């Protein structure tokens, strides 16, 4: 692993704001200037009401959207263009429908010039790790929602990115599957401790998984209104951990902060309609 300078976080946003220009020419200030950093090896969860700009921030870290003001530093270096150190698991379905699960996973290696046979071997081992070895030859439409998410995870992790961006990766899944996926994610993550920025709308999931939970306010001009460490020791069992007093304390505090914003965001939607 390349040695990151000790005091530079993997990701640092400095006064990043994003203003979208709409088709009718008007401007929508989605995110007010925010500062946020994710240390190397740190697991940060980002929660906030729907439409506040969580995906937008992730896109900025990925280099897909350039900030209107401010700067993104990756390991201390200013980012321009696509962030080559980041792997991004998108909120929406992003597998290539014309490729099998195996080809989808090996794709990221192949385009980097890894010989085909080696790329496939490594992809196969990743499919095994996410429990889908038997589904290697299936096409995305032949997989369930949860299986697709796991293939997506393998696709991203296969390239061994230093920074992992995850946008509500378990969003559309049922509660049990989410818990199991959470455990899987923590297990994979604990092997090499990448910097993780994990977006979720599920506060419990955020606390169960993360080292730190960051709360965003409702947009427009969304800000970061809370930043709380989660002092629960690892390794964690994401289900068991929900029953501990520490968890409940944190949950209560964060929920109070979040509730007002969620209500505000609904009001916002009503006003526009």
């Amino acid at each position, binding site marked *: 692993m390349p040695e990151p300078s000790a005091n530079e976080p993997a990701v640092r946003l400095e006064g990043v704001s994003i203003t979208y220009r709409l088709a009718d020419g008007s401007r929508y200030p989605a995110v007010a200037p925010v500062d946020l950093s994710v240390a190397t090896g740190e697991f940060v969860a980002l929660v906030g009401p729907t439409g506040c700009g969580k995906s937008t921030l992730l896109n900025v870290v990925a280099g897909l959207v350039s900030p209107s003001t401010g700067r993104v530093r990756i390991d201390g270096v200013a980012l321009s263009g696509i962030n080559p150190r980041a792997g991004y698991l998108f909120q929406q379905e992003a597998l290539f*429908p014309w490729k099998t699960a195996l080809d989808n996973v090996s794709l990221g290696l192949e385009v980097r010039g890894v010989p085909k046979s080696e790329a496939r071997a490594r992809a196969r081992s990743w499919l095994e790790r996410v429990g889908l070895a038997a589904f290697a030859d299936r*096409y995305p439409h032949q997989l369930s929602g949860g299986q697709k998410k796991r293939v997506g995870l393998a696709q991203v992790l296969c390239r061994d990115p230093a920074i992992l961006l995850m946008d509500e990766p378990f969003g559309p899944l049922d509660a049990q599957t989410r818990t199991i996926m959470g455990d899987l994610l923590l297990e994979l993550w604990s092997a090499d401790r990448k910097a993780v920025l994990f977006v979720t709308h599920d506060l419990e999931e955020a606390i169960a998984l993360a080292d730190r939970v960051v709360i965003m306010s409702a947009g427009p001009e969304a800000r970061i209104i809370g930043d709380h460490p989660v002092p629960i020791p690892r390794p964690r069992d994401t289900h068991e951990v929900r029953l501990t007093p520490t968890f409940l304390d944190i949950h209560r505090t964060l929920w109070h902060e979040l509730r007002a914003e969620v209500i505000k965001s609904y009001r916002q939607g009503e006003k526009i309609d």
Partner: protein
Amino acid sequence: MRSRFVLTFWQILVLLGFLLFWHFGGVFGYLDPFFFSRPWDVLVRTWNDFVSGVIWRHLWITLVETILAFVIGSVGGVLAGFWLARRELLSAVFQPYLKAVNAMPRVVLAPIFALWFGLGIWSKVALGVTLVFFIVFFAVFQGVKEVSPVLVANARMLGMNERQMLRHLYLPAALSWMFASLHTAVGFALVGAVVGEYLGSAAGLGYRIQQAEGSFDVTGVFSGMLVLAIFVLLIDALVTLVERRLLVWRPQPVATGIQG
């Protein structure tokens, strides 16, 4: 399985009903055989044409024209669609002209093509090409334009360069759209060939029909149409076969619910 059987049964029943109506319409004097012929006569004529072998040469010519029109039109359509879809300005400039040309009834072009390319197969191929090209062009253009932005973003995050995006993203997306238009395209290639033959040639199915019409041989006309229909069904089945092979990744549009 059972529903498949039931379906075939009904399909055959419809055909039989039609033939019986036709036949007895003639028997009872509602359909004058001079204008409407008789189903049995048409079948016998068609059979004889195949047995005596006169039809094979015409079939062959029409097939060659259809294939040439289809291949040339498709390749042109794919290339042009691909190329224009990735160039905002150029496509904006050409858009109105493409639409205007596409709206033109191709029949009016047939005499001009005959003038340019002679009365041989190439004037028919040209007519087919003008039909096929636009179908494929618009399909591919649309396909490339509508590649999911999330897929594009994912491709970029996976580190693809322009060439790799073309190969892994745009080409497969465009091809799937091209195949969606394939049945129509093949059909139009045939239409181009037959219309071209009909308007002026010395061989082909269209020529056969035109000859029969010239001598008020209604049986000959219907026989020609029957051969054409069989021809179309065969080609369409072939296209379906190719499609199944190449688009295995696509969810089968056949609704499984119907069979359950």
